[in-house]
């Protein structure tokens, strides 16, 4: 795929920064505002897709990871699995009435990462609350961005392969990448 015009490349760089910040915000604030891991990961992946389409194949190899993406997606699933299965209710655990639903929310309460006690009732929404819900949201965001990036990258390779084999211009008639 050929790179698009210079205007598109410059504007896509600015918009990439904004989209990444917004996607990280959506992922991290999953326990406070609408959104969460899946939605924020989709925003991050669409930012990556925008940059991939704008840059073509030219400079993209230095910008994005090439080898570790499978590790990230496997890590996301594995961490989600381990949190889902390892933190079941401990025997004789004291449930203080604030941190128990279907799994034992061991991270909420004692402090630490996302660990402060959530105020009951309407409140301002403190970021450092939520416990396991927030951690799982972030892990899901990691897994979604990795998986969608793998899909994008593989389809990008395939299109490059098709375009390099097809010199007669059959697939090139879309007009999107002729800038």
């Amino acid at each position: 795929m050929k790179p698009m015009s210079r205007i598109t490349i410059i504007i896509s760089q600015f918009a990439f920064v904004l989209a990444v910040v917004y996607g990280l915000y959506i992922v991290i604030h999953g326990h406070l505002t609408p959104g969460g891991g899946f939605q924020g990961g989709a925003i991050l992946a669409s930012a990556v897709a925008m940059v991939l389409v704008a840059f073509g194949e030219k400079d993209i190899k230095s910008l994005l990871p090439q080898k570790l993406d499978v590790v990230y997606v496997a890590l996301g699933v594995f961490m989600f699995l381990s949190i889902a299965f390892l933190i079941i209710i401990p025997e004789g655990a004291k449930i203080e009435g604030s941190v128990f639903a279907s799994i034992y929310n061991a991270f909420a309460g004692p402090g630490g990462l996302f660990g402060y006690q959530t105020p009951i009732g309407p409140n301002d929404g403190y970021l450092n609350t939520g416990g396991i819900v927030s951690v799982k949201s972030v892990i899901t965001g990691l897994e979604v961005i990795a998986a969608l990036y793998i899909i994008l990258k593989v389809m990008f390779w395939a299109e490059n392969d098709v375009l390099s084999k097809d010199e007669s211009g059959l697939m090139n008639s879309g007009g999107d990448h002729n800038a």
Partner: protein
Amino acid sequence: MNKSIKLIVLVFLAAVLLAGFMMVRPFGQLEYSDMDDYYLDHAQQETGSNNIVTSVVYDYRGFDTLGEATVLFGTAVGMLALFRGVPR
């Protein structure tokens, strides 16, 4: 013959869907709202999450979300396997 069958099917489908649409309850007036009331009343103190949708997705129905994540993982691995011969 063919056209009349299509017409009959169309009229039947339209009648069924219109009947279903007529029987929809007004917005906000649920018949059974026990589950919703439970979530609204207890989700914050049970899961520690202000966002009740997130508490349902990641805590009450966490295994469903685990299945979604596994589906996404399978999709990524399947794409890699499908395009394994493509030069990078």
